[in-house]
């Protein structure tokens, strides 16, 4: 035999190997280990891994949909919401930037002005009507990007599923204002004081410059 040659002995099957009984029992052991572990996690009061960490944590990966739902990532573009000012007014200034940017042309806004004597008169312009056709919407998020005042957002985490009829997909201002973000927030992050607001710096000429 030449130098460096390794001789491997042919493995021999024992009677236990030949019958497969031991291996079957071992395999079933693994199966039942996971089965009982899962059963323990599934029972009322059982502790289960975080559903958002399925891929990284041990434990059961089954979700009882639709009773249980996996929350969406924070950047998920869900159904729109209209943010509010601290006083509950809609933050939107009806500038029509979103409806201009919308490639699906699903946003329709009727701008208006609060009448003289109205408590919100200082906000110069507001949407009298704000309608989004969610059937036509392609959820691209351009409206959110176009908005100069953080008035429209898609962070509700609601995904659009089938509703009873087509009319239900036409969301009006009241419905859009009622939506909350995944954090339960309704206020805008951009509540700039405007002329007429109590916190506005006021008219310069009245201060006697």
């Amino acid at each position: 035999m030449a130098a460096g040659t390794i001789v491997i002995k042919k493995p021999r099957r024992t009677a236990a190997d030949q019958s497969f009984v031991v291996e079957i029992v071992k395999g079933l052991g693994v199966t039942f280990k996971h089965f009982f572990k899962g059963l323990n996690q599934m029972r009322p009061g059982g502790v289960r891994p975080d559903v958002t960490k399925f891929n990284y944590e041990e434990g059961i990966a089954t979700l009882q949909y639709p009773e249980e739902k996996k929350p969406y990532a924070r950047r998920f573009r869900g159904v729109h919401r209209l943010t509010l000012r601290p006083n509950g007014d809609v933050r939107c200034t009806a500038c029509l930037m979103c409806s201009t940017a919308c490639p699906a042309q699903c946003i329709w806004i009727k701008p208006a002005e609060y009448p003289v004597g109205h408590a919100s008169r200082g906000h110069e312009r507001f949407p009298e009507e704000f309608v989004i056709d969610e059937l036509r919407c392609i959820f691209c998020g351009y409206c959110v990007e176009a908005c100069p005042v953080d008035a429209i957002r898609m962070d509700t985490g609601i995904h659009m599923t089938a509703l009873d009829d087509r009319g239900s997909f036409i969301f009006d201002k009241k419905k859009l204002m009622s939506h909350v973000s995944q954090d339960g927030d309704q206020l805008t992050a951009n509540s700039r004081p405007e002329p007429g607001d109590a916190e506005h710096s006021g008219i310069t000429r009245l201060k006697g410059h």
Partner: protein
Amino acid sequence: MPTFKLDGKEIAFEKGETIIKAAYKQGVEIPHYCWHPGLSVAANCRMCLVEIEPAANQRAMMLDVLVWDAQKKDYVVSKKPKLQPACQMAAAEGMVVKSETSEHVALARKNVQEFLLLNHPVDCPICDQSGECKLQDYYMSEQATPKRMRDEPNHKPKGQVFGPTIVYDAERCIACTRCIRVCEEVIGDPMLDMRERGNLYEIITSPGRQLEGHYTMMTEWVCPVGALTTSHWRHKGRVWLLKGTQSVCPGCATGCNMWVDADARENTAFRNRPRDNEAVNQYWMCDDGMLTYERVYKHRVTTAKIDGEREATAKAIEEASTIVASKGGLAVVLSAQRSVEENMVAVAIAKAAGADLYLTGKASWDGDKILRNADQNPNRAGALKAAGVESLPSVADLVKKSSSYANILVLGEDADVEDLGDLKGKKVVVLATHETSSSWLSVANVVIPIAVWAETDGTFVNAKGMAQAFKRALAPRGEVIPAWEALAKIARQAGHDTGYTKLAEVRAAAAAKGIEAPALKKQDGVAPATGTPQSTV
């Protein structure tokens, strides 16, 4: 014609003309705010500064300035030429003017622009001027640097009501005084003035006055920024959603040239804007003319009616043709409100049926010496020319002679007499656009809905005898069809074929009668902003 050089381009000018005006006529724009071709020179915005090279026998007027030297990290003394306002500087033969090619001019414009925007609220998203604002245009072309001032800008009153049509925002105002000059020079009534100075300037209405009269909307039209807004267009939409169509005002016999701005998505007109025409309206229009776009959607007749019952338009045309074809004497009433083409077809029917012609229209209103003609009808001259006569009997004459006619075909619902009760019992076909109280509709048996001027191509002949074409700005709404088409169908079904099947054929026949409007130049569908050089037709 003498010429001067602007950025190497030869510009012809008339004696006494300013540099900016001569350039404007050639379609070359020198950036400006306060200058307007139809107003006097104020030279207060300093945006139109240009560099003028000294004549051969003169020294250049130089200014000592300090310039930042990046290497020395200090200011060094330097010289630069004194710039001149192009709006005030009279052009001279052989003058060499540098506008776009001068670095000093570019720097001056940039700095002027920065000063104008110092206290500007930058509320472009809610500003109605946004999209056709000179501050935006020149920011992009001349400045394009971020704001350097960190202090709170001045705050001034917003949404001040100047009068029934105009709302003023003092924060957006750049004090160019164009609106004040419009009041003084065009309207001839100094209703506006300015108070305070420096940062605190404001436009105000004259004490005890408000902005009123027939030309208030011209103050908004000349405003280069969003300071003045009309209560009609304010907060209605955005200018970039509108498309301008070349049109002629249907408000009176002056025939002011204008743009009809319409939103195709809603098939509605939102505003009118004057279209420059030195021979007719120069740069202006009256308030009633500016509001004629409302005729597109207000009180429209959109469905056909037979004896007060709603019917299909085709059925009404069939009924109308039986009336026109039946015996007993037919009177055809032309309309001074309707276009030449429509009157041409009506005249053809009258000729074929052997009918007598009458002329109707709106009653006269208060004219003035500026633009408003006492005759409210845009096409009286055109209707007479289409009939080929000097004058036509009126509706009052028709009422007097009513016994000789059993059937009447009326173009347009307007009647210049109060009561048409005597005509009850006649078979009356009315081609109507609007629901009005005292009109032909009160005696109509058959009503056919027809297009208003903005829904069809056509021609008006104004009081001066100028034929002016206008284009279709909108699709006809409801079951409306163009009047010439309705008339041609009635004639064909009544057995009096006029031979007209296309508008071009009617136009050719009108041209043969000497009514031919100069062709409209093809212009950008997007509306040009206020005061931009544009074809003066």
